[in-house]
């Protein structure tokens, strides 16, 4: 019977994989680590990403300095004490001396910094920033907003503009988002976006954990010669297919465990008292797509990875030679950055249908946009075709090289093999 062997191989590997300590640890530890990272970050950082630091505000104009101080107190980074502020009146002549006295503190932490806002700024808005880390955009942005407000207010008040108008002029714009759908419009939420990116990350972790060790497993079976006996009972295709199927099953089980909390959110939205801006609103479609595409992606990568690994007699050789192939695993992940700024940009749209990148990009788009149905279907079809090719090529390479030991095949030989029927 053709599939008895396949099933036996599958069963054995499932047992080996699902019951392995590594799997249990990875599956259970992963969510803990993820939440741990989020928790630690939240503890260190408020939502704007500001880091604990000392900030000196200096000016040669006492009025200006007081206005800035009053305005800064309204900022949450300052009122919560993330930025510890010190305000100092310093004349332009004494500034160098003052800076020298604070140099040690500025050097002590690269998030520390000193701003000098001369009275002249009321005319030219020129401000100086001293720090070891001029790339701290978060600090620069929040300060420049505040300085701008203060300078505008002072400037216009000297022109006799009424206070109420002034407040209007310096107020920053607040754009509230509403997602428009066929049923109407509702207040937007970052919950879906977070879920989309979270899924992309989990996918990355899972693919690494499932695909990377496949190489060592194949090479071990090859070098300890166990494969010769196996191949008298099953053919190489069945052997490889059984192994791949077992790993795919393991991956799906793992992903299911990881996404379990999310299913609870989606199925029982009432059970979660989430603030409206974190509301998660996802249909089952995204999960169907996600798992289907995940299975295809795993099949593809495992077939390629397993096939190529069989050519080598040691994991070192394999890792060295296969780094271009491992790019197939890592590079597509970076495609998610194409969607960060705008999930609906046309590059993202293409990447969400391109094989492999679609694994990461499409879920984010599905979570945040109303994507026409044909797009996920194209993504699935494209991956499906590639899976078919990968299995054909991987299976062939595996079949030919799994029993060949000693000399490694040359490029020429390799392509000759691929062309063989």
């Amino acid at each position, binding site marked *: 019977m053709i599939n008895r062997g396949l099933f036996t191989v599958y069963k054995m590997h499932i047992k080996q994989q699902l019951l392995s300590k590594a799997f249990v640890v990875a599956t259970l530890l992963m969510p803990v680590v993820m939440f741990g990272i989020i928790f630690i970050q939240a503890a260190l950082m408020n939502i704007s990403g500001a880091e604990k630091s000392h900030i000196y505000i200096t000016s040669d104009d006492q009025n200006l300095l007081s206005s800035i101080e009053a305005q800064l107190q309204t900022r949450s980074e300052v009122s919560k004490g993330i930025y510890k502020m010190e305000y100092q009146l310093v004349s332009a002549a004494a500034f160098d001396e003052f800076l020298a006295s604070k140099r040690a503190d500025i050097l002590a932490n690269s998030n520390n910094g000193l701003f000098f806002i001369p009275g002249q700024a009321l005319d030219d808005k020129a401000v100086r920033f001293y720090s070891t880390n001029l790339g701290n955009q978060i600090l620069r942005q929040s300060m420049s907003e505040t300085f701008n407000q203060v300078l505008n207010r002072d400037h216009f008040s000297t022109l006799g503009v009424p206070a109420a108008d002034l407040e209007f002029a310096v107020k920053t714009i607040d754009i509230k988002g509403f997602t428009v759908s066929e049923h109407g419009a509702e207040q937007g939420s970052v919950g879906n976006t977070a879920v989309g990116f979270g899924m992309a990350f989990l996918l990355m972790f899972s693919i690494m954990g499932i695909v990377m060790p496949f190489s060592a497993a194949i090479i071990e079976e090859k070098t300890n010669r166990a494969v010769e006996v196996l*191949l008298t009972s099953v053919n190489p295709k069945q052997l490889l297919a059984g192994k791949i199927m077992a790993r795919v099953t393991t991956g799906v089980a793992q992903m299911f465990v990881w996404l379990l909390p999310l299913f609870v959110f989606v199925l029982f939205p009432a059970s979660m008292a989430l603030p409206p801006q974190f509301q998660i609103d996802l249909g089952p479609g995204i999960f169907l797509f996600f798992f289907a595409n995940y299975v295809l992606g795993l099949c593809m990568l495992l077939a390629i990875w397993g096939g190529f690994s069989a050519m080598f007699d040691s994991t070192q050789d394999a890792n060295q030679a296969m780094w271009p192939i491992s790019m197939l695993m890592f590079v597509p992940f970076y495609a998610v950055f194409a969607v960060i700024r705008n999930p609906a940009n046309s590059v993202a749209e293409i990447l969400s249908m391109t094989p492999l990148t679609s694994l990461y990009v499409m879920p984010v788009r599905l979570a945040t946009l109303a994507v026409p149905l044909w797009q996920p279907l194209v993504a699935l079809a494209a991956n499906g075709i590639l899976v078919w090719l990968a299995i054909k090529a991987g299976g062939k390479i595996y079949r030919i090289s799994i029993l060949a030991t000693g000399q490694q095949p040359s490029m020429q030989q390799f392509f000759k093999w691929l062309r063989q029927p």
Partner: protein
Amino acid sequence: MNALEVTNLTKHFGTFVAVDNVSFTIPEGVIFGMLGRNGAGKTTTIRMLMNIYEMDAGTIKFRGNRVGQEFRDRVGYLPEERGLNTKMRVLDTLLYLAELKGKQGAAVKDKAMAFLTRFELDTRTRSKVQELSKGNQQKIQFISTILHDPDFIILDEPFSGLDPVNVNLFKDIILELKAQGKAIIFSTHLMEFAEKMCDHIALFHHGKVLLSGALAEVKQRFSSCNVVLHYEGSIEFLRSLPYIRKVQDYGNYCGITIAQRNDSQRLLRDVLNHDVVVHKFDANDISLNDIFLSQTGAQGEAA
């Protein structure tokens, strides 16, 4: 009826011909020895039987039909390069390999335990294969070869790396399997084993089969004008006797080729006259090794 018929089997590796137009037949219920020096092409032939290598030409028929999966399910195969998944447990390994051959359930497990007990490994069922010594790993692999009750057993150099006690244990089991009516192929470069155990042989040399058939017939074909002498003392004088063609001395026994059949009487007299103690004098007998040497004209590694 023949269990296996191999005709015109050929295998190239690049330009090198590893197996060159090889034919032989194996009747049911015999022990068939594939003999030859290292590199003669035995393993390559066996791998083609097992469909591990694709043959370039030739046919292999099992009970009249071309070999396929059915054949491979009925075969127990012990490869020359032993190998098990070292991270699996002993009993799991045995059951997995048996299941791949379509045998599972309590009966197989009981049988596995019986074999493990016989090999004094019954306390190691939960050990990982890698925790066992090389010799014990070989035993596990041997058990896995026969556990699924194959009709046909192929053992590639089964005795290599075994201590004498285990060689005997393997031999006993092989003979038991033969008594159960199973056909057994084993390959070896050790002529002595073959001589003691085989019913049929094929002599491989440089990828060709020089001769094959029932051991008794082969021997008969080569034994006239040949004497096997088991002795104590010095037989150097033999080389100067005019009717002696050749002496192949193995220390305590030797093969002697004489000019004519009836020279054997003179030979016995001369040997006794030179105070050589004769333990056994076998006229018209020949050792497999002598046949091998006479056929290949080479100095064998066999002793």
